């Protein structure tokens, strides 16, 4: 059989179209299978926040239940050397946290008293703006989160965070985790990590671990956008401060002094 140039071009064009159609069909099928997840309803809360009652927090001296609960569940490594320290929730003396929150005569009152600290999950987080690879962002629920898969370890976010909430894994963290919880990933060397407001628990409608672990109920968690939520009622009734509000980051963690 002899084939003309025209016939050859027609045949190859048709077969190209056939291949493309087949591929598109397969992709459509795939999307159909995955499409279910897109229709999954997502309960949207506008902004998760936390109130920390420092008086209640200090009731039991040396209590670290919240820190322990968080760090063991999230596989936070415990390095002996402070230079390698990785922390999600921690404590610092009052005068370091609120340097301008007192007068020269009231300084003694709070001097050295521990203040519980964690990521503030800012309304306008400076850390997410500087990430060159979009590995960290603020979710619709107001949680500042990190995609550990994408983090390249440039530490811009650490420089941008005015609260020192982010830690860097200078070494392989696995070697320094006493008991690995397989429900949550560990991190690898060269990745930044911080408190995630227990995002994995919020997805299951559970309060963060630190809130649950506190026997004194010093931590109150809730939606800041809902006027009738417990947290809003508390913030209406008591005087509360944020860390470094003058920076305009809008922290979602409030302190009752």
């Amino acid at each position, binding site marked *: 059989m002899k084939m003309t140039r025209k016939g050859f071009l027609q045949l190859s064009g048709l077969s190209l179209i056939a291949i493309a159609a087949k591929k598109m069909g397969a992709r459509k099928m795939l999307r159909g*299978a*995955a499409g279910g997840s897109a229709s999954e309803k997502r309960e949207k809360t506008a902004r998760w926040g936390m109130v920390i009652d420092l008086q209640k927090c200090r009731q039991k001296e040396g209590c670290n239940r919240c820190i322990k609960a968080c760090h063991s569940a999230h596989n936070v490594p415990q390095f002996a050397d402070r230079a390698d320290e990785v922390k999600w929730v921690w404590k610092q003396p009052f005068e370091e946290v609120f340097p301008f929150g007192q007068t020269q005569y009231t300084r003694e009152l709070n001097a050295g008293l521990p203040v519980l600290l964690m990521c503030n999950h800012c309304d306008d987080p400076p850390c997410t703006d500087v990430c060159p690879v979009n590995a960290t962002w603020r979710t619709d629920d107001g949680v500042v989160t990190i995609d550990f*898969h994408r983090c390249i370890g440039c530490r811009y976010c650490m420089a941008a965070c005015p609260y020192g909430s982010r830690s860097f894994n200078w070494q392989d963290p696995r*070697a320094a985790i006493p008991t690995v919880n*397989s429900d949550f*990933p560990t991190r690898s060397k060269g990745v930044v990590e911080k408190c995630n407001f227990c995002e994995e628990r919020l997805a299951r409608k559970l309060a963060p671990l630190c809130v649950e672990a506190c026997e004194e109920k010093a931590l109150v968690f809730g939606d800041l956008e809902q006027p009738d939520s417990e947290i809003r009622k508390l913030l209406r009734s008591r005087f509360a401060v944020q860390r470094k509000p003058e920076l305009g980051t809008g922290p979602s963690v409030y302190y009752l002094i």
Partner: protein
Amino acid sequence: MKDRPFIVAGLAVFLVFVTAPVWRSLATPRITLAAPQIKSPVQEKLCVAPVSYMRTSHMQLLDEWRESVVRTGQRKYVAYNGKVYEKSLTQTCLGCHGSQKEFCERCHSYSGVSTLTCWNCHSDAPQVSRNLP
């Protein structure tokens, strides 16, 4: 006649040298080219997608799961048969398939494809305890 020991010794060395590959192959453990036999899960008969799709495209599926869970917070996967699964490598995948050593690792090392970096962070053992100083 004086050279006889040298000739015999030389022949012996030559023989050993020539037959060396045979001895070596006998000494090394047997290599089989048969594909690894992966045990099918006992309790579940169906995977989250047809087996043929999983064989060729599980990496795309895992990638999609990862993106949607981490970046958009969608944690439920509706399978082709309508069943809803949690998008979880350690719980859903390994819940049926057992440990990564038995399942992922064997095929990957057999086919010589890229080493798995998932397990640098995710862990398949329920609780790994280490005694730290």
